[in-house]
């Protein structure tokens, strides 16, 4: 399993329960807020003592935030005429037959 820096083995050998390779595999569950609380604490403990993983997680976080913000910039409003058409059809419950 590769570490964030692309090394095959875990070169910085401080004592923590989470391996750097696991950080690479679980980084998205952590950043997406989809990890259980116990695992979040272990993950954060690892980041506190492991600078390469810290830099890696920051990089991934920044990239995800870019994807979120840059692709959400183009929010377009639904055309008002279409909204009116849908509302009217629903209000009179006069929907076109199923296609």
């Amino acid at each position, binding site marked *: 399993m590769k570490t964030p820096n692309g090394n095959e083995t875990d070169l910085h050998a401080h004592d923590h329960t989470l391996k750097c390779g696991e950080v690479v595999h679980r980084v*998205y569950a952590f950043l997406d807020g989809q990890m259980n609380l116990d695992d979040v604490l272990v993950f954060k403990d690892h980041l506190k003592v492991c600078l390469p993983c810290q830099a890696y997680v920051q990089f991934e976080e920044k990239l995800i935030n870019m994807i979120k913000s840059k*692709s959400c910039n183009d929010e377009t409003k639904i055309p008002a005429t279409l909204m009116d058409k849908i509302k009217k059809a629903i209000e009179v419950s006069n929907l076109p037959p199923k296609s």
Partner: protein
Amino acid sequence: MTAKDFEEQAMPHADSLYNTALRLTRNPSDSEDLVQEVFYKAFRSINQFEAGTNMRAWLFKILVNTHISQYRKTAKDPSVAGYDDIEEFSLYGQVHSRSSSLTDSPESILDRFLDEDIRKAIDKLPDQFRDVVMLVDIEGFSYKEASDILDVPVGTIMSRLFRSRKLLQKYLWEYAVEYGYVKP
């Protein structure tokens, strides 16, 4: 549920459904047809909606299913099977191995990408990967909600998301090299 209740609960999601429809169909006219169909289908089958559950996720599920049945030839896109090797790719690793000075941090490359690069990379993703990125990153659904909408296990959402992000990184790296954001 009355027509009025439906309007109050469902119509506030019209803009985000429309934007997702635009991303799915890449065409304003098809998006309008698609969103209209989604609201009609939802209203007709409103008795299948459990009160108090997630209206937004339910509407998105109808959107995705309608799009798949109308616009995609096959619901299962075979092309995603061939992306096992992408898991090893890391934009961070690429940049890290090239950055020579302390001032040139791997993160600084991210500032050089234009909005256009990001959009182009997302658009280039295979459909099944793009669906997950749209739902989780752009629309903010949880893994569980995305799994309900796409009708696949949470584990599949996680692996598709992992591969999608790696593939996005690979495309961005290609742009970085092509447009000279990194020194050759």
